[in-house]
């Protein structure tokens, strides 16, 4: 029925998007010239056979279209090729590094969501009060403070000056905190997650507050109050869920934004994630890795958008399906 068809439509559209991105990406990479040159350039005295072997290995023979289809076919088999620099299967690297990225991004979004809900409710229910003003001002500052600058400041304060938080990496190489790998991992997450939370929280709060202020003015809120429902239920039960509808789009964008700027975040905190991997791949012109990472980031983004669309359906019965 409607919902299923709607989701099917979105899925197909998402697929088209991914294919489109893959074509653009491929064209871009190929505009630079045959990667094999870069790959083999530093190997003087190399033989024809060896070039042949490596060409075979990376599927780089044939015309551009041939190569594209070879590549796509490989992608479909989840075979992203082998990293030139690391000599590892790209798919494996993407999973390991991707998980590290998600490990900071997802908690950051979730925490930011909870915090900003509380703050926005606090502000929106006291519109024009000092609290409200403070929240807006704070959120505005946070919204304008670039994440990486904040990260730098956090490192300066917490790692350099106070020396209480690690500023680099996701794990201690040895001697994990309290001897527990779990505690150690969380310990390392504090700063990057903290930075992302602050950054997201600011923007989310700005949006959520204004959405909430709008919703709180609506007739059905007055109606709920006039029915004698306690304020808490009116705000949390009736207003918040409605206020979330416009914010939902942003959540999708947020996810994209975080993945998109993961290179910066992960550079600042030397986080072993997809972003850092991407930077490395670009620096070193590790084509299979660049293509793989971009594709994965795109797929994640498209998935986030798709999930947002589906979330709309779940949260708002008015969305016209089909």
């Amino acid at each position: 029925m409607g919902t299923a068809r709607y989701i099917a439509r979105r899925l197909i559209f998402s697929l088209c998007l991914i294919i489109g991105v893959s074509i653009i990406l491929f064209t871009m990479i190929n505009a630079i010239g045959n990667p094999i040159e870069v790959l083999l350039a530093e190997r003087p005295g190399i033989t024809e056979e060896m070039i042949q072997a490596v060409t075979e290995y990376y599927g780089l023979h044939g015309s551009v279209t041939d190569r594209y289809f070879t590549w796509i076919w490989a992608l479909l088999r989840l075979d992203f090729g082998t990293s030139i620099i690391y000599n590892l299967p790209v798919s494996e690297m993407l999973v390991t590094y991707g998980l590290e990225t998600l490990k900071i991004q997802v908690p950051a979004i979730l925490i930011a969501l909870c915090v900003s809900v509380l703050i926005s409710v606090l502000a929106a229910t006291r519109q024009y009060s000092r609290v409200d003003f403070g929240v807006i001002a704070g959120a505005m500052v946070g919204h304008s403070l670039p994440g990486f600058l904040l990260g730098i400041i956090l490192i300066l304060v917490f790692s350099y000056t106070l020396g209480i938080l690690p500023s680099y990496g996701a794990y201690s190489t040895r001697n994990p905190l309290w001897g527990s790998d779990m505690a150690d991992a969380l310990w390392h997450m504090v700063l990057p997650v903290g930075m992302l939370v602050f950054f997201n929280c600011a923007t989310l709060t700005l949006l959520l507050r204004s959405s909430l202020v709008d919703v709180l003015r609506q007739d059905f809120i007055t109606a709920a109050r006039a029915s004698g429902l306690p304020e808490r239920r009116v705000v949390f039960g009736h207003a918040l869920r409605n206020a979330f509808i416009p914010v939902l789009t942003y959540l999708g964008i947020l996810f994209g934004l975080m993945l998109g700027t993961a290179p910066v975040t992960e550079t600042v905190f030397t986080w072993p994630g997809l972003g850092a991997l991407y930077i490395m791949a670009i620096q070193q012109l590790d084509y299979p890795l660049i293509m793989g990472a971009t594709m994965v980031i795109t797929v994640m983004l498209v998935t986030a958008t798709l999930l947002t669309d589906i979330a709309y359906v779940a949260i708002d019965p008015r969305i016209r399906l089909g």
Partner: protein
Amino acid sequence: APPFFRLYLMIPNNQPARMIWGTLAAQQMSRIGIDVVSSFVPFTVISPRRSRGDGKPHAEGGWDAYLERYYYNAIQPTPNSLFHSRLAPPSGQNFYYVNDAQIDDALDRIGNTIDPAGRQAAYRDFAKRWYDTEPMTILFYPKDVIAVNPKLKGFDTTTFNPVFFPNPESWTIEGAGNDATAAFASWAPPMSLIPMYSNGYSDSNIFGPVYNRLYEYESWENKRLQPGLALSHTMSDDGKRWVITLRPNVRWHSGEEFTAEDVKFTWDTILNKAYGAPISATAEQVLGSTESYRVTGKYEITVELPKYDMLFLDWLLGAQAIIPKHAYERIPPASMRGHVASTWNGRYQVPISGGRNYTALGGVGTGPWIAQGYDPQRRAYKFVRNENYWKPHTGNVKTFYVVNIQGTDSVLSALRSGAIDAHDPMYDIGPLAETIEPSWGKVQTFDSFKWQHICYNLRHPVFGTGVDTPLGRQDPARAAEAAAYIRKAISHAMPREQIVKEIAGGYGEQGTVPLPFTSEQYDHDLLKPIEYDLAKSREYLERAGYRY
């Protein structure tokens, strides 16, 4: 006034300090009338350009100039392995097309003179000719500055490819009992962990602890060779015939015994073009062909060199790690680079005698450390102590990690948080040394065998061959002379003293020629620092025919 000519300067973007002096160098060049187009690029952009081997200038797909840090592959300076006109790419590593009869002659003498005094004279001739024509602008000799965990004792060497590497078998971490864990930071991810493919310390930091060489250096201090897998050798008077006796009862990590066949296998693979080892050409120069050596006993190998070459002992025996025949011979040449033995990512079975298999997690060597593979989350290569090592460990480290950390800041905060004990010299922590507190970091400095330079494509018509300079056009015979004037002009425009003091944090010496500043071969009387003098620069340019 319009600029005299255009020069494309590529500045590798992996080292902020170098980017800074690169920018400064570009500015200084433009101050004397050169139109400099500088760009920050990763080394991967530079290498294919320079290894095309056709000497084209930058605008035609080749290159004009770039910044580089360089060192010889052996502790004895071996300019003959780099700057001989014979070694032009693609088969050699004279990427700069240094092509000077006097230099060639000196280099040949360096390589083939057995007599130490004669060789010393050859070094001097090389240095003098270089100092006069300056085929490259040597900016300075950096010192290696390494901050270590104050509790770490026995760290008395800097890494130097591939001869020195962190040798944690001699480390003692105070107060850590008998099975301490140590960690070492390495800047760049390795390309391949098969020794013959090594590109520099990003690789040798990791594979080094696993393998042995036939001869090894005793210490960084005295830089003397001592027997490693070889026990001793004999050399004929003409320096051509060598008999090498190997150490018996040495076992590979798999449990197999080390024999002369492994040495032969190692040299065979290096020379075999199908494996595509970049050192192949140099090895061929030294050994000639696979015909020149024979296994003459289980622990003996006899070599007939085409002619004496200092590189044989100092480089091939002293710097090239021996790899196991039983473990690697089954790997097809084309997939050697992608094999687990090269990536250390995964496991593979090594057949050993008795029809059994040994499960390897990385490279198989005879060395003091057994590879445990790569942990991608920690970005670390893990090693455990080889309890059956032929030489006892002198420290208390049982588990060892090499961690991939990029960035000076990161490495220092890692040291501060106790995550690492030491790091490789790539980090250039010199300028930040003052921020290291004794409570968490001890700064150690080492004289290094490297130099930082601006290198030129010497086939460039202006500053390479000089045919396109005013003087060169006017008098083709003096073209080379004109090009040298231009290079000297650039050289005099470089504020070396300031670069060392302000950018390198004072850790270095002003540069002149590509010979290690502290080596015996460096003639301090001859090689006076090149002064920073823009007037002189202009004068040289005028001599090349340019008018202000």
